[in-house]
């Protein structure tokens, strides 16, 4: 029995290295009115950064994105309160714990919860950011894997005034914001 627990303890960090299966979170959005489901990794992430403009703001965004391993965003909006099971978030939290992403922020207010996890590498540099925002009618999970700090995220997505992609569209697909049926909103 002791051996089993030892094996289990050893297997957890190993499983964490395999990466989290975001499909396991799909059940959270079973009753969602709106779903935003973004997975950008590898070549797709590089491709995305190549298609950013060449002005000064985009250059810093490009250089930051170039070092990232993956960006995963899951966001669900619900029509009424209590339409998702908060316990379904537990596998994601367990993964972050196993992968040694310490929780640096936890704020609770009126039944809403916000958590921020920050991964540090051996050199003490930030190796990723994960955010869980659980509101009554909205649930958002952000997982950015790679060298990025909260300041970077705030700087890039805040002060750079990132435009709505719809404005930039040239008659093409766009981000996968979809309705409850999984159909894309064009």
């Amino acid at each position, binding site marked *: 029995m002791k051996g089993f627990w030892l094996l289990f303890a050893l297997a957890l960090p190993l499983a964490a290295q395999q990466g989290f299966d975001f499909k396991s979170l799909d059940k959270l959005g079973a009753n969602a009115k709106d779903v935003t489901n973004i997975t950008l990794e590898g070549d797709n992430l590089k*491709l995305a950064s190549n298609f950013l403009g060449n002005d000064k703001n985009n250059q810093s965004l490009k250089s930051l994105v170039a070092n990232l391993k993956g960006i995963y965003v899951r*966001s669900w909006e619900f029509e009424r309160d209590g339409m998702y099971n908060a316990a379904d978030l537990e596998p994601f939290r367990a993964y972050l714990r196993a992968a040694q992403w310490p929780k640096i922020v936890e704020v609770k207010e009126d039944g809403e919860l916000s958590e921020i996890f920050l991964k540090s590498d051996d050199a003490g540099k930030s190796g990723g950011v994960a*955010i869980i925002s659980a509101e009554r009618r909205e649930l958002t999970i952000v997982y950015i894997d790679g060298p990025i700090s909260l300041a970077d995220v705030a700087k890039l997505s805040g002060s750079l005034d990132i435009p709505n992609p719809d404005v930039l569209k040239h008659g093409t697909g766009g981000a996968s*914001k979809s309705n409850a049926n999984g159909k894309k909103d064009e």
Partner: protein
Amino acid sequence: MNIEDRLREALEREPAPADFKRKVMQALPAKKNLSIFWWNRRLSLALALAVIVAAVVPTVIVENRHRRGIAARDQLLTALRVTNTTLRRTKQMIHKNTRRSS
């Protein structure tokens, strides 16, 4: 002349006319020319098709890549917007809590 003689005369082997061989040999190259014509035509068609494919395929690939790139960029910007909104909300909650406790 009785019937036997007439039959013998009719079935008698005759030597070929003097220019028969020449006529046959003349007919052969004409057939060969026709075959070359059709082969040339097929080859031209195949070449034309190859040129069209060579011109169209890279355009389609570039167009496809462009479309994927735009979609990926839109996703990246949406992801950063969602991240920003979520962080801002968290910051507001922290501020509220801090004010309440102080």
